[in-house]
């Protein structure tokens, strides 16, 4: 008797052993450490923290190691860990005006209060493979810069660096952002409903897949929901996180986060008061994630279509479409579930198709042409 091939516990266990072996690679190469991933693959760690929604470099690096470098898998691991964590309190909103600036650029002004700070960036590098990195050991140290750069954040809160969009807002040229004082939505606690509140939308975008948002943002530049963006300001640096413990009643600092923030200046429209003003998009992510933050800002602006009297006809402008498909843990899960057996459904389709064909055949016999 033929026995249907079905997976058993032994097959699964064997597959996991094989996976662990593959992850480790050839035993004669040294094993990669979590600290090395944190330090030397820092941008991968940043992406996993942002889309995994946990600010913990060590855990994100561990997830990358365990996922053998598959970042979507690493994001999934971190999310599955996050879901088990208790929530103590909500922090105060972070204040990026008081950021310890590591990088800060504006494409709308040549110079501005606080200055342009290039910081560590791939921009303006020539993308030539550096074969010296192939060699074992440390490459020759670059010549020290003529001025010493102070990279360590100062102990006290730095002076505020005014934000470009705030300057435009003060002149009445930019539409204002107002804190309605509502409790922000948390889509990890309550399912999103459409149309979404702005806080839910921004949360979904921060957690959203970088590649998906990049493509959507790009599509707005190519005419599918054009919104005439300028990179008003991009800033990267550490910000303080404060909480107000109930028993104290005043804010205390519990730590710092490195964040990337992008604010775009977008095409102007005539507003309710009859005045013409620029519109804006907002992007934020954990660590250094400029591409993600820019893509997010473009999509955030595209999703404001209806607020600015634009007809939402392009994919990037359709909130339900964008938000319900941007999460890569959801998307990867549902696509990958096609690998699960579907014998029963397929059998049902087979049976139906055969019956339709049989009915057509017998009808053909009864009715000779």
């Amino acid at each position: 008797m033929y026995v249907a091939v079905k997976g058993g516990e032994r097959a699964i266990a064997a597959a996991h052993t094989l996976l662990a072996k593959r992850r480790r690679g050839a035993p004669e190469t040294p094993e990669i450490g979590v600290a090395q991933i944190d330090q030397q693959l820092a941008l991968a760690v940043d992406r996993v923290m942002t889309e995994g929604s946990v600010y913990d470099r060590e855990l994100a690096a561990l997830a990358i190691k365990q996922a053998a470098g598959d970042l979507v898998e690493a994001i999934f691991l971190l999310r599955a860990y996050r879901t088990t964590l208790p929530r103590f309190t909500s922090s105060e909103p972070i204040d990026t005006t008081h950021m310890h600036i590591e990088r800060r650029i504006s494409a709308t002004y040549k110079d501005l209060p606080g200055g342009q700070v290039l910081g560590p960036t791939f921009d303006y590098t020539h993308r030539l493979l550096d074969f010296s990195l192939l060699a074992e050991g440390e490459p020759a140290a670059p010549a020290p810069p003529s001025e010493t750069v102070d990279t360590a954040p100062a102990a006290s809160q730095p002076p505020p660096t005014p934000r470009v969009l705030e300057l435009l807002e003060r002149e009445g040229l930019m539409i204002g952002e107002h804190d309605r004082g509502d409790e922000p939505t948390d889509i990890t606690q309550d399912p999103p409903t459409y149309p979404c509140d702005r806080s839910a939308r921004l949360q979904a975008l921060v957690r959203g897949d970088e590649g998906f948002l990049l493509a959507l943002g790009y599509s707005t530049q190519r005419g599918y929901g054009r919104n005439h963006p300028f990179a008003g300001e991009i800033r990267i640096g550490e910000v303080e996180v404060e909480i107000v413990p109930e028993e104290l009643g005043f804010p205390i600092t519990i730590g710092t986060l490195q964040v990337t923030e992008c604010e775009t200046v977008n095409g102007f429209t005539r507003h309710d008061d009859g005045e013409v003003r620029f519109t804006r998009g907002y992007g934020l992510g954990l660590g250094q994630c400029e591409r993600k933050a820019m893509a997010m800002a473009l999509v955030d602006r595209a999703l404001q279509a209806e607020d600015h009297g634009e007809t939402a006809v392009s994919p990037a402008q359709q909130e339900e479409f964008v938000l319900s498909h941007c999460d890569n843990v959801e998307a990867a899960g549902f696509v990958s579930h096609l690998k699960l057996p579907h014998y029963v459904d397929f059998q049902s389709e087979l049976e139906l198709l055969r019956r339709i064909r049989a009915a057509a055949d017998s009808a053909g016999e009864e009715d000779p042409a």
Partner: protein
Amino acid sequence: MSAPATRAGYNFAYLDEQTKGMIRRALLKAVAIPGYQVPFGGREMPMPYGWGTGGMQVSAAIIGRDDCLKVIDQGADDTTNAVSIRAFFRDLTGVATTERTEQATLIQTRHRIPETPLHEDQILVYQVPIPEPLRFIEPSEVETRKMHALEDYGVMHIKLYEDIAQFGHIATSYAYPVRVNGRYVMDPSPIPKFDNPKMDHSPALQLFGAGREKRIYAVPPYTEVRSLDFADHPFEVQRWDQCCAICGATDSFLDEVILDDQGGHTFICSDTDYCRTRLARQEEKA
């Protein structure tokens, strides 16, 4: 009483108690409004979306230390995902597990309802990929919620009618839409329509969890579940000319097994427990 051993560092059944409470409140609402999709704060689970996270959250919220759990996928206890989910709950609850339908108090299923009739002390938890029966006709959730609120189900009948006009049959063979308690049109999850009649007036409580879509719905015991049809095209289930090649059953859903590359095939029960039980009974008699 000594608690069963569970994985260190995790709560009983993985989810924290607040989350379980939230899911139980959604379940109570779902039971009170049969067939209505209740939004719930679906959590990330350590398995991928689409692999049963909704069913697992429902199971995790209701499982108790005295439960006896059965997990099936495609009717079988030994398919990889069923093995994996059963192992997860064994690891994180320590409860007893079984492959015998009549022994189980809690059955989590993907794509089948067991052939053995369920009884009052059982709960059947379905894994649901797309909870919205109108989704393939109307992609927008805003619109479909409105349609449910207004009981505006005309489009569904038009779709079924178009099938008949085009193919001579209603061309839906699984996830065949049902109407629950004369009110909500509901997706029974991708079970074959062969299983639809088992939902009607079932003595067992039927719970449905859709993790990615963050919806829970329910059919309380002894509730009317009607498969949509027309007076001149009544609902009918799949039939086979063959019987099960192992146990000889003529009344169960059969999976086709390809024997060779010459088109040779045979059929066996999709419900492995049903097949095994029948075989054991035949051997007893012999």
